[in-house]
């Protein structure tokens, strides 16, 4: 019998974060060390041994490790993946290069298209063709498959993707092509578009297959090594990975479909917010995670983050939609904008106005106040100048900040050019970055037909609690919640994520003309596959639940909306109910219905999940209880000018304590700003709950 403790490990670009939880001992323990980019498992092993030792445990006490990684996304961004060959339907060799034919920036004459993962000379045409019903128009030329695959291997391809037209409808040509290649090259990694993303739209599906093939060899090698290293230190529990959709899965799925880990890290933050929302009984939440380079916002309703089924990876311009490679994967639907502590302020030469971000000073040289050579003022510098941060208590005092450098940087960098005082320039940086985040959040919600009023903001990440009060104010949000350990809270997501996966198949037909036997067979296949994946991911078979849905639209429309289905098996008698369900979803999304037009379904989805674990946050690291401020600081607010503000010690606060804003609450990795007019109380889970109009 393996142990009871679990560890969540997030391998980020700079740091590897670990969080250990042992329900049997009511213990939560965290750790942080530098990522080892050449072999990320080094830091995982070292970190695991360290937190175990600090908690007084051994590897044998571990029940499981849940792992999130940026390896997949970095491989795509840095273009360090495998040499991939692609077999496509003759006539469609260039689908992944022609793409959507859109300029992602209307005014840039010199913009760059995202480079394809498979260059044209490694894309080979295979005579074969199915039509929309899966009927053969042209039989598969197996000799061509053998010939082209051999040529690609001779070219040095380490992995192969196969993407044929209409394979979402019928995969038989792709399956047969794989058999032909396997017979020749039994060890070659092969990705079928119909398996990795069985959805209509050839560009996106093929692009996903190529990306999967591209990251697969490196990811497999990495996971094999990690398993071996963990075994070597005596770990006998299960290793799981975090999927982009926020579910956990077995390592086997990660090796077969590594592309599903593309948003592995960011998903954890949203799962942490969902967990906190459930714990606090909040059903309408905007999750807000602001770090050094970016801010991420996500809608969390009824305890679950929103999902979407496409994602753009490896953007040419990180924050510009349309500048990356589209992937058909289930991801937590969040927006990421270039607004973080390191975002740089500058004055535009044309208009003479100030912009903040998306360029970031990153960790090196970092903001000016770090004193590591940064000269351009950043958001963190403004936060320091406005009194939100303590020069002496940054990272718990480990790092001294230099206010003098910041003052000079603001004076010469922006204030002079704008003709304002340095303090006003700093306030301007804060106003602009907060407005930018507010606009992006409003927009994200508006696209879903939501209004931020009535939602609660859950803020975390190092910079999140610093800016949350002002962001909430701009959004007319009345309540915000900040968890204990906000700077590392996203790692909690690894421990609370449920085993879950999203299955998909496309089959296009008008509701009146549906072949129900076919639909039911699709769902039966998805259910069986989903069940197998979840059992591998440690789910109790009795607790697995299924949520079927279909993407539908009116005939003639170019976009679909998800519609929940009543059951895994449907028939002729359900058509009226399907239509009503479509109208209900349509009304919810668009605010009206059009009853006359016929309806068609395109894609069928099955969300498969089992319950996640609840964890209790222990009280081990707290200081003695006290509501006495440990000091006072001058803080400048846009709305109230400069005020003397009490500073509370986060670790001394206990459930039930209450105080009025303006106030600052400091913990090691972050500071929570409570603005004037707000009231803050500490809830039973040690969250700060701030009522803006308290």
């Amino acid at each position, binding site marked *: 019998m393996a142990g009871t403790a679990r560890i969540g490990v997030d391998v980020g670009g700079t740091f590897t974060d670990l969080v250990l939880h042992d329900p049997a001992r009511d213990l939560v323990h965290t750790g942080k060390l530098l990522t080892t980019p050449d072999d990320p498992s080094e830091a995982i092993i070292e970190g695991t041994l360290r937190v175990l030792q600090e908690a007084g445990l051994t590897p044998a006490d571990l029940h499981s490790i849940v792992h999130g990684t940026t390896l997949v996304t970095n491989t795509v961004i840095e273009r360090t993946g495998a040499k991939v060959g692609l077999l496509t339907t003759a006539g469609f060799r260039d689908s992944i290069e022609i793409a959507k034919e859109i300029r992602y920036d*209307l005014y*840039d*004459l010199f913009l760059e298209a995202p480079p394809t993962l498979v260059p044209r000379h490694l894309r080979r045409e295979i005579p074969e*063709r199915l039509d929309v019903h899966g009927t053969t128009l042209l039989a598969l030329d197996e000799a061509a498959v053998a010939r082209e695959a051999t040529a690609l291997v001779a070219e040095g391809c380490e992995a192969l993707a196969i993407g044929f037209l*209409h394979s979402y409808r019928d995969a038989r040509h792709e399956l047969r092509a794989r058999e032909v290649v396997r017979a020749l090259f039994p060890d070659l990694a092969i990705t079928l578009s119909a398996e990795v993303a069985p959805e209509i739209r050839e560009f996106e599906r093929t692009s996903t297959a190529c990306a999967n093939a591209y990251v697969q060899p490196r990811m497999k090698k990495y996971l094999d090594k990690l398993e071996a290293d963990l075994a070597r230190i005596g770990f006998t529990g299960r290793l799981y990975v975090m999927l982009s959709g926020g579910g956990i899965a077995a390592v086997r799925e990660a090796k077969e479909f590594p592309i599903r880990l593309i948003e592995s890290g960011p998903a954890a933050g949203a799962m942490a917010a969902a967990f906190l929302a459930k714990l606090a009984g909040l059903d309408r939440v905007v999750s807000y995670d602001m770090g050094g380079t970016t801010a991420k916002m996500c809608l969390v309703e009824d305890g679950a983050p929103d999902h979407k089924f496409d994602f753009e990876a490896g953007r040419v311009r990180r924050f510009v939609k349309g500048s990356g490679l589209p992937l058909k994967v289930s991801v937590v639907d969040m927006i990421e904008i270039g607004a973080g502590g390191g975002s740089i302020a500058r004055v535009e030469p*044309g208009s003479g106005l100030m912009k903040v971000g998306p360029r970031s000073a990153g960790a090196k040289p970092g903001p000016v106040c770090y004193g590591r050579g940064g000269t351009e003022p950043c958001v963190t510098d403004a936060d320091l100048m406005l009194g939100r941060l303590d020069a002496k208590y940054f990272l718990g005092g480990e790092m001294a900040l230099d206010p003098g450098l910041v003052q000079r940087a603001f004076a010469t960098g922006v204030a002079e050019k704008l*003709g304002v005082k340095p303090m006003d*320039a700093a306030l301007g940086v804060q106003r602009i970055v907060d407005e930018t985040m507010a606009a992006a959040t409003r927009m994200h919600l508006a*696209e879903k037909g939501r209004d931020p009023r009535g939602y609660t903001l859950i803020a975390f990440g190092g910079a999140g609690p610093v800016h949350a009060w002002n962001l909430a104010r701009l959004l007319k949000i009345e309540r915000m919640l900040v968890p204990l350990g906000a700077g590392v809270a996203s790692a909690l997501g690894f421990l609370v994520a449920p085993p879950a996966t999203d299955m998909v198949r496309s089959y296009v037909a008008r509701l009146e003309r549906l072949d129900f036997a076919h639909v039911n067979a699709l769902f039966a296949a998805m259910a069986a596959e989903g069940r197998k994946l979840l059992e591998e991911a440690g789910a109790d078979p009795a607790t697995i639940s299924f949520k079927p849905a279909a993407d539908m639209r009116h005939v003639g*429309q170019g976009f679909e909306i998800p519609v929940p289905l009543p059951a895994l098996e449907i028939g002729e008698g359900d058509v009226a109910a399907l239509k009503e369900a479509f109208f209900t979803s349509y009304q919810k999304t668009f605010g009206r219905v059009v009853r006359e037009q016929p309806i068609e379904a395109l894609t069928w989805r099955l969300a498969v999940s089992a319950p996640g674990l609840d964890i209790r946050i222990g009280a081990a690291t707290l200081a003695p209880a006290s509501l006495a401020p440990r000091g006072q600081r001058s803080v400048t607010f846009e709305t109230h000018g400069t005020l003397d503000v009490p500073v509370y010690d986060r670790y001394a606060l206990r459930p039930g304590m209450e105080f009025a804003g303006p106030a600052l609450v400091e913990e090691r990795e972050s500071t929570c700003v409570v603005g004037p007019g707000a009231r803050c109380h500490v809830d039973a889970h040690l969250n700060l709950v701030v009522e803006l109009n308290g």
Partner: protein
Amino acid sequence: MDEGFDAITLEIYWSRLISIADEAAAALLRTAFSTIVRESNDFGTVLMDVNGDSISENTGGIASFSCILPRTTKHFLAKFPAETWQPGDCVITNDPWLATGHLPDITAVSPIFHKGKLVGFSGSIAHSPDVGGSLWGADCREVFEEGIRIPPTRLIRAGVRNQEILDFFLANVRVPDQVSGDLEAQITANEVCAARVDEFLGDTGLADLQGLSRALQARADLAMRRAISAVPDGVYRATLDADGFEPDVTHIVVAVTVAGESMVIDFEGTSKQIDRGINCVMNYTHAYSVYPVKCALDPFTPRNEGSYRAIEVRAPEGSILNPRFPAAVGSRQLTGHLLAGAIYKALAAVIPKQVIAECGGAPTMRCLFSGQDQHGDRFSQVLFASGGMGASPHRDGLATTAFPTNAGAGSIEAFENVAPLVVWSKQLRPDSGGAGQFRGGMGQEAIIEVRSPGPLRLSLISDRRDHPAQGVLGGKPGAAAEIVFSDGTRPHPKSRTTIEPGMKLHMRYAGGGGYGPPSERDPAALAADLKDGYVTDAAAYKGDA
């Protein structure tokens, strides 16, 4: 200049007003019924002050629309003076001369009130799925054939819909549900914009938008003037020819005069208007003249009415760039999209690092199929696809990308699911990018087979058969457009015909022009092109052919 606003507040307010236009655009996209708005990006939203001057526009739509909407609004104000507008009004038109140059685009403008006072207007334009008349084409003789024309009309008066007018309009279109659905989406977008502006004024305590509007226009104006004054003074001329409609070639003549911080773009000498649907009204001519200048000189400053104040555009009345009513204008893009190429050609000598060569995708090439599918259901589908962009001084032209418009393309699998057509190929056209130091973007070839039970109607709207996209500063032209049936016959590129089941249509989209002499091409770039098969004729691309 800043009307009492400090620079930081100005930046914040400007961003906020842009995000209001974006939110209106999101509402339009979200609630539009038809595919055309989404798939071809054919829409725009603009926030205007009480004078009808634009303050902000949405980020992603068609650039020309935001330029034209304020002009249309001023026509509305001439007919319905400011004091007559009431909350809940919505005025529409699709008049080509007052609005965007052809009937399918519907412009809708609503007033914005704050504390009972008229403070501005919210406007939207969207390409309607149908406006009656003939099937979309380029060969009509008069605008009357091209559909129903709606003069500026109060579709909604103080919140009450004029149902008779709406019924009258919808009775004249082929797909009334889709048309009314899209119109509702425009009204919704205008309402969202108006509500957000009201909220914005409440939040900021401003009484109206006028001071802010003047300040933001002044900032945009200043940025453009700074950019123009960096261009040496002088008169820069160019001519450009396109197929037009035989026997008339379209001959564009442009003189760009730069004097200090202002610019005049004059099309004196351009072809006369003709009795076919490729005439381009002055509004469209203006929009497609100032847009390429903005891209070349001042791409980063947000746009508003001030952006284009320093630029004057002239075209002789009665020319193909300023036709008199009732000229046919249905495919005015076949002429209007050429202007960017002409202007860049004129400016190439003086600002060579800021322009690109002519684009194969200017103008766009479209084939529209319409008829009945195997179930007897009516369908009408346009295959969206683009030629290649002209090469730039910094890199090869983008393949299969439209400029100056930004219509995208959809999935072939989705296309085949809604029309009885099989697309046998849609891939890059090797050797179609013009040779040069930087190569023009490649066009593409699509092969479409008719698989319907009966014959279909085919409408072709294209140019560049006889006039490929020219290179610039020594660059070579891209490949011309070609349209060929599988039996070897070539349909007229601007025609409406019938196509029989089993017939295949080969659509070859033009390549973009090259930049700089081919002899200066980096040998490694040529080797890579040969390896990837973008180029098969090495000699031609080395410049020694």
